[in-house]
């Protein structure tokens, strides 16, 4: 059942085999797997539950309802980077683009060699990926609905000799409505809110929405439950309490909230790694004024990619935005802004994503567990690669006939041709001269590893320090992936669900054995007593 705070008559106290904090890419698969294995599962989700009818093509409204802090979450440092995160049933998957990529082989190798994670084998992961891809209807974007914007870019990248293709996505019968990041209005995108969570609920799981988990209960070094507090969605006031006692606690709040919760609960901190090692895949974007109507955002926003430069850590991926979002990315106001916006039908866009080499980030405890502080410093090399990615996108747009290309670089906000590209190529950028950056893949803040001194969780996702406390979200990924992470987060979560299931099975086996032993002991006791009574000739001896 999906429970809304307003339907509750009072505080909730209950028991379950497993309590899961967060219903996103990590929490959803664990909930489904364990509920379908016959365990009682409770999910606690801070955001509200929406259905496809609630998604109304208004990006501004979606930001305030579906995103944490209305999408205003940023990293502090140079430059400031917006890192939006979903806060709703389905987590960030409800607002993501649906791209589903497997971990690159060289990254897995790094996990094996640098983090001692050899027991996560390529074969095992491939089996998990295959099962997930089937479950989520993952297939390459259909060129029919890929959108003019994405097709144009791919075609002209190809003409320049840059390799690319259509991205695999978890969408079934996608009609290219173009608003994946604001909630898919047809239910085509197989985000966790329309896949894992409904299946978990069908198997008996309960999802408490509008409830923030605040305390992880630990007794004798073991996690034994979670306490949370509901919020009235209308007033924002804290209302009822929730307490769930459980044999296993799964933390799946995402790479920013999960370390914050651990820090505020003062648990799992001895490695010194909680909140550290944050990577985010910083993203650049370009807008291009084309001679013909592009017709954004109709078409799949992220249907194509150019991976020619992936070995350098640069992925180019499609992105289209509705007018409300494009309006806040333009570096002008007044007349210039209004006139450029009037050209919206002619404006194309594309994005780039950098796999970090020398940047560094961390999440630290903020004034409240809800509001941790995120710091991020873009390294010199990564800044140069961001610039290179913007140059590449501009080059491709000009090859496609763009009249002008707009970039997020001060002094180069508007490029009108190859001469400007050369000028930008020669420029040595300062961190402060690149603005309006965003990043969509925070990860690594409770990294997995084989050494309890340098990692927070084991390869099973159980924390080194607190028994029966598992972390199943982007925070366990030990390195920057270089590709969109949701499928890997799901695979690691599904893998962890197997270990949790084993644990619960052996616990219930232990309980069963303990029960049998207890019954045997009681029988022996009563037999002994009756023998003793018989020998002493007491009552009942006949």
């Amino acid at each position: 059942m999906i429970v809304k705070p307003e339907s509750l008559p009072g505080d909730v106290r209950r028991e379950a085999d497993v309590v899961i904090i967060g219903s996103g890419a990590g929490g959803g698969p664990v909930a489904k797997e364990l509920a379908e294995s016959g365990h009682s599962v409770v999910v606690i989700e801070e955001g509200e539950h929406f259905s496809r009818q609630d998604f109304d093509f208004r990006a501004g409204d979606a930001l305030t309802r579906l995103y944490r802090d209305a999408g205003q979450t940023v990293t502090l440092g140079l430059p400031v980077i917006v890192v939006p995160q979903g806060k709703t049933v389905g987590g960030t998957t409800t607002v993501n683009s649906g791209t589903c990529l497997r971990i690159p082989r060289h990254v897995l190798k790094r996990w094996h060699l640098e983090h001692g994670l050899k027991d996560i084998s390529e074969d095992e992961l491939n089996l998990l990926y295959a099962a997930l891809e089937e479950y989520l209807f993952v297939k390459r974007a259909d060129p029919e609905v890929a959108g003019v914007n994405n097709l144009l870019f791919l075609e002209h990248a190809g003409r320049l000799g840059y390799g690319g293709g259509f991205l695999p996505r978890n969408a079934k019968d996608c009609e290219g409505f173009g608003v994946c990041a604001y909630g898919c209005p047809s239910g085509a995108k197989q985000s966790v809110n329309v896949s894992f969570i409904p299946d978990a609920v069908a198997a008996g799981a309960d999802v408490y929405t509008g409830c923030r988990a605040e305390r992880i209960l630990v007794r004798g070094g073991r996690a034994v439950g979670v306490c949370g507090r509901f919020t009235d969605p209308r007033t924002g006031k804290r209302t009822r309490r929730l307490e769930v006692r459980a044999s296993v606690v799964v933390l799946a709040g995402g790479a920013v909230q999960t370390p914050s919760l651990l820090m505020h609960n003062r648990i799992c901190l001895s490695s010194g790694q909680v909140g550290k090692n944050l990577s985010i895949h910083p993203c650049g974007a370009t807008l291009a004024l084309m001679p013909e109507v592009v017709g954004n955002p109709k078409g799949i926003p992220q249907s194509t990619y150019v991976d020619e430069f992936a070995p350098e850590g640069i992925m180019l991926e499609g992105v289209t935005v509705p007018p409300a979002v494009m309006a806040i990315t333009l570096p002008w106001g007044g007349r210039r802004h209004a006139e450029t916006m009037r050209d919206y039908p002619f404006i194309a866009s594309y994005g780039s994503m950098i796999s970090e080499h020398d940047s560094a980030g961390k999440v630290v405890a903020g004034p409240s567990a809800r509001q941790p502080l995120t710091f991020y410093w873009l390294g010199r090399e990564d800044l140069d690669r961001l610039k290179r990615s913007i140059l590449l996108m501009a080059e491709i747009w000009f090859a496609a006939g763009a009249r002008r290309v707009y970039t997020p670089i001060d002094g180069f906000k508007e490029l009108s041709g190859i001469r400007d590209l050369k000028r930008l190529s020669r420029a040595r950028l300062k961190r402060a001269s690149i603005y309006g950056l965003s990043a969509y893949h925070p990860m690594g803040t409770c990294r997995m590893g084989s050494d309890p001194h340098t990692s927070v969780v084991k390869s099973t996702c159980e924390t080194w320090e607190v028994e029966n406390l598992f972390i199943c979200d982007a925070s366990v990924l030990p390195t920057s992936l270089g590709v969109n992470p949701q499928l890997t987060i799901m695979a690691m979560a599904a893998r962890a669900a197997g270990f949790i299931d084993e644990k619960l099975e052996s616990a219930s086996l232990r309980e069963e054995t303990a029960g049998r032993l207890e019954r045997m002991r009681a029988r022996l006791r009563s037999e002994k007593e009756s023998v003793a009574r018989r020998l002493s000739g007491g009552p009942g001896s006949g």
Partner: protein
Amino acid sequence: MTMREYFMRRLHRLVPVLIEQVEGMPPVDPDQVTAFAREFLQAGTPAFRLLFYAMMLALQALCLLTRGRSVYSLPPEDGDAFVRYLYSSRIAALGAIPTVLGIPIFMAHYNRDDVQVRLGFDVHGMRGEAAAREVKR
């Protein structure tokens, strides 16, 4: 009057300075922008709210200093020139003032159905199509 009310009234008067009415586009509606901004700021972080209010004060102070009059009473041409001056300044902090203020203001205006439709994004048609096309697993 609460602090929030004070800033919302100011914001209402700031809307035409940042969003200029151009031919072919639906009229700007400061009421709608203010209502959206109120909700957006409320749902957001306290840090962004504070930054936003600080930027409003900074904008007014700068306008008084450089133009000798309140930003809220600038004639449209002067308002546009002032905004252009800020955006093109070499001092990044000056450009940040209208950038931050523009976030809820621009988002609100371009979130409107009639504005989106005018820009070729037929939200009414799409809503109808989406409603008729429920995808079942």
